[in-house]
């Protein structure tokens, strides 16, 4: 093969697309993006404008709604913390170590995302309900899973942890493994290298993963309503208000949930604001 001649490269002009093609492409992109944005934002804007003001106003008088918001926030936070503790090591292993069955474990972690949520609730009930060996033992020890806030946490953890695992795995994968190797050659043990090098470099990605998990946990309905109908989280409360009183009473509750979910999502954006635009 002839040696590569760099000088020839400079003489190659970048291909200039036809101006008409470029204009059409711009229009297609603009129209597609606008339609998509409209589709995504329309329902949210509609919901908040229909029920937002009343929802926020009713926070003062509606004790049930306040209690429900608090319950939702606390259970989603506990579920997220449990997810962080339980899933971070797994996410690290999936990102860093190649082991037999890694693909299988990865696929299994995605499985809860495709299980319909009421089915997930039934599956959890079968494993953790009082009629099961595990649930029976917990019940005897005074910890009832179903029909209690514990059931809410379990349902949230099950449906939202897969999002954390996959995002955390990505966050670890983005940290160059060579930094860890350098730390190891300088005398750090594996844990120290993880704590001093990998964790700080992936912290932002892990936080974002946790925020997404928390937001998903807050929105869960199907699995929770099977495990724990009372006390009611906000999603169950809005369903209950709809069936008891109709749309006009369900809208404010739903709108409050949307506004409430804005808090972590805005925090996530703020967190990422300083991050340069790269992969």
């Amino acid at each position: 093969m002839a040696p590569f001649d760099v000088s020839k490269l400079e003489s190659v002009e970048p291909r200039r697309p036809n101006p008409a093609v470029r204009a059409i492409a711009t229009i297609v992109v603009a129209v597609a993006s606008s339609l998509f944005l409209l589709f995504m934002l329309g329902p949210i804007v509609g919901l908040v404008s229909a029920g937002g003001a009343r929802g926020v106003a009713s926070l003062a008088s509606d004790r049930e709604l306040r209690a429900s918001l608090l319950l939702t926030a606390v259970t989603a936070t506990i579920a997220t913390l449990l997810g962080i503790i339980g899933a971070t090591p797994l996410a690290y292993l999936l990102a860093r170590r190649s082991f037999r069955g890694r693909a299988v474990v990865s696929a299994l972690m995605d499985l809860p995302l495709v299980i319909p949520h009421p089915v997930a609730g039934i599956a959890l009930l079968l494993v953790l309900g009082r009629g099961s060996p595990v649930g029976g033992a917990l019940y005897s020890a005074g910890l009832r899973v179903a029909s209690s806030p514990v059931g809410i946490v379990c349902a949230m953890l099950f449906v939202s942890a897969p999002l954390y695992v996959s995002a955390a795995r990505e966050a670890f994968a983005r940290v160059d493994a060579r930094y860890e190797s350098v730390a190891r050659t300088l005398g750090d043990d594996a844990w120290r290298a993880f704590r001093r090098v990998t964790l700080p470099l992936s912290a932002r990605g892990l936080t974002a993963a946790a925020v997404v998990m928390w937001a998903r946990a807050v929105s869960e309905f199907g699995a929770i309503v099977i495990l724990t109908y009372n006390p009611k989280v906000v999603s169950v409360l809005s369903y209950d208000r709809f069936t008891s009183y109709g749309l006009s009473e369900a809208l404010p509750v739903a709108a409050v949930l949307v506004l409430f979910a804005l808090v972590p999502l805005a925090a996530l954006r703020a967190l990422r604001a300083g991050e340069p635009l790269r992969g």
Partner: protein
Amino acid sequence: MLRLVADTLVLYLAASLSKPMQPVLDAYSARTGTVIQRESGASLEHIRKVTELHRVPDLMLLADAEVIPQLLVPKYATWYAEFARNRLVVAYTARSRHASEINAGNWMAMLQRSDVEVGRTDPNLAPAGYRTLLMFQLAERYYKRPGLAAALLRHAPESNVRPNAAELAALLEAGELDYIFDYQSVAESNGFRFLTLPAAIDLGDANRAAEYATVSVKVRGSSPGQTLTLKGQPILYGLTMPSDAPHPQAAKRFLDYLTSPQTIAALRAAHIDMLEHPIVVGTGAPAEVHGAVRR
């Protein structure tokens, strides 16, 4: 006649009817080629879908006939038919704690034991829920035990409440609950054991309307803060075809089938206590409701 396009029938079913009716619906689909779009849920939820979301079905079969004149007539329907009875029972399984000891004489005490989990349905959403509370009051009077109603309620706490009769049954089946207050048809169609209660308290005797009406219960009204007082009544299931049913012809053909003697016999075999003659209230009921008597 060969139909090139399959008939569609949108059916809203009370959760307690869903399981026992399935074979009858399947048979009808197989025979006529009708595609039945069935939605199962709490009766009040079905009503909200019509009145709030304007998602109107072809037929609604609800656990309490009374809610139809209260919430659907005249705007959404002009008639309804009472078509089946039911009664409240205490349902349980072989796994339920003290399953071998419970009987007609000791059930009140059994259900108050601290090691027993008792469930009921939400009185604000499902007829089975408010009927259970009415039954507690009738029991207190019948057994002459002041405070019994409150005690039974205390031992079937909010955490053991579910939105409808079928979801409650699922919890009993899963072993999460030991005993539930539910309809006899639900207990039978799920293969549960059940304890029959005296006719004076189980709301199943059509001849005791006056007796049942001596108790009442408050449930949530049509807006927050409002309450609605419901008097005791014999349990009667009601069906209606909304005025704006999207497939009225399909609905009439199904009514023809549903009220035929053969289907009534099949539904009875499936533990639905069908009335011999549906009782039609209002105007505009199609001729396909067979053997109807008017009130």
